[in-house]
């Protein structure tokens, strides 16, 4: 069988640069496995495969490099590495599962659920029998700032609510001089 000749770099003979470009372009227009091969304007229906003996010689030579090497070393390194990685992954999954369970348990044990289980601080009561100091005013101011319930005993102003005015009254009482109190007109 005579194989069709095609244009190569050595067979340009006398063809100008622009013509070369056209010829090169004409090599490529048909795409896909089953498309006919076009070379230099001629359509070759037969796929220009390599002659079978030449292909076989090339395969034999190429595979000789594979055959002479023992791929068992590759098997051991790849598969052992994959198994070890899989083992590590399983251990990590189990560890992360155990840690998640432990965290859930800790949350269930220590985080208060609902209002009933919340620790309730004892309500601070104003002791009117003791002499008033500036600390009482400070304590009431702190109580009002917090969201805790305030005892009605702190209503020293007598207006029915415990608020900033009671802090002012307590402060005024604490800093009032005894001589002024005694000398004041009844």
């Amino acid at each position, binding site marked *: 069988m005579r194989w069709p000749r095609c244009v190569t770099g050595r067979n340009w003979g006398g063809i100008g640069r622009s013509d070369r470009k056209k010829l090169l372009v004409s090599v490529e227009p048909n795409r896909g496995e089953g498309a006919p091969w076009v070379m230099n304007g001629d359509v070759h229906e037969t796929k220009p495969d390599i002659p079978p003996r030449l292909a076989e010689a090339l395969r034999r030579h190429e595979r000789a490099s594979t055959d002479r090497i023992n791929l068992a070393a590759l098997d051991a390194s790849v598969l052992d590495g994959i198994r070890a990685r*899989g083992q590590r992954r399983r251990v990590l999954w189990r560890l992360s599962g155990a840690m998640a369970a432990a965290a859930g348990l800790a949350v269930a044990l220590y985080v208060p659920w609902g209002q009933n289980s919340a620790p309730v601080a004892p309500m601070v009561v104003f002791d009117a029998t003791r002499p008033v100091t500036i600390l009482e005013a400070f304590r009431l101011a702190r109580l009002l700032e917090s969201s805790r319930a305030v005892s009605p005993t702190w209503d020293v102003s007598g207006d029915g609510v415990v608020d900033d005015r009671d802090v002012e009254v307590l402060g005024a009482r604490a800093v009032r001089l005894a001589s002024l109190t005694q000398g004041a007109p009844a």
Partner: protein
Amino acid sequence: MADEQLNECSDDELAARVRRGDERAFEVLYFRHREFVYRVARRFAGEDETALDAAQQTFAYLFRKLPRLRLTSKLSTYLYPIAKNFAISERRRSRRDVDREFPLGSDAPADGGAGGGDGEVARAVASLPDAQREVLVMRIVDDMSVEEVAAATGVPAGTVKSRLFHALAALRDRPELGRYWEE
């Protein structure tokens, strides 16, 4: 699933099983593509040890990527550029002085060897430009279609055909290979 049934699965099905944690499916994939990957790595690495390292890295990379990998073509098309790039980088790392980037046929026997004309065929192929030699060997030795070669090398199918034509034309012009063309 039994090993025989796994062997009959397609690459895509095996990849899906690996994603579900089946390591035996990966072993089937490995043994299915082991020689191809080593052959590609050997082609670009130029020597056995470097090729083994590159093949190992290729499969480790595949195992890492499989959970997110969605195959749109054959697995060999996906593996080819990975094995090639690992082989080239491994060869650079080993700092061995290899003249050609693609040393196919460099270890061909000078007298043609015991296999008749295998050595002269290998030398003739080795003398081709890199791009032509690559597509020729993929097409003939790796038995890949033009589309698969195009996908693996990242060039259009028309360019692959063109390179094949020029490679074959150059081989046909070599007088020592003339007898192959007169069959």
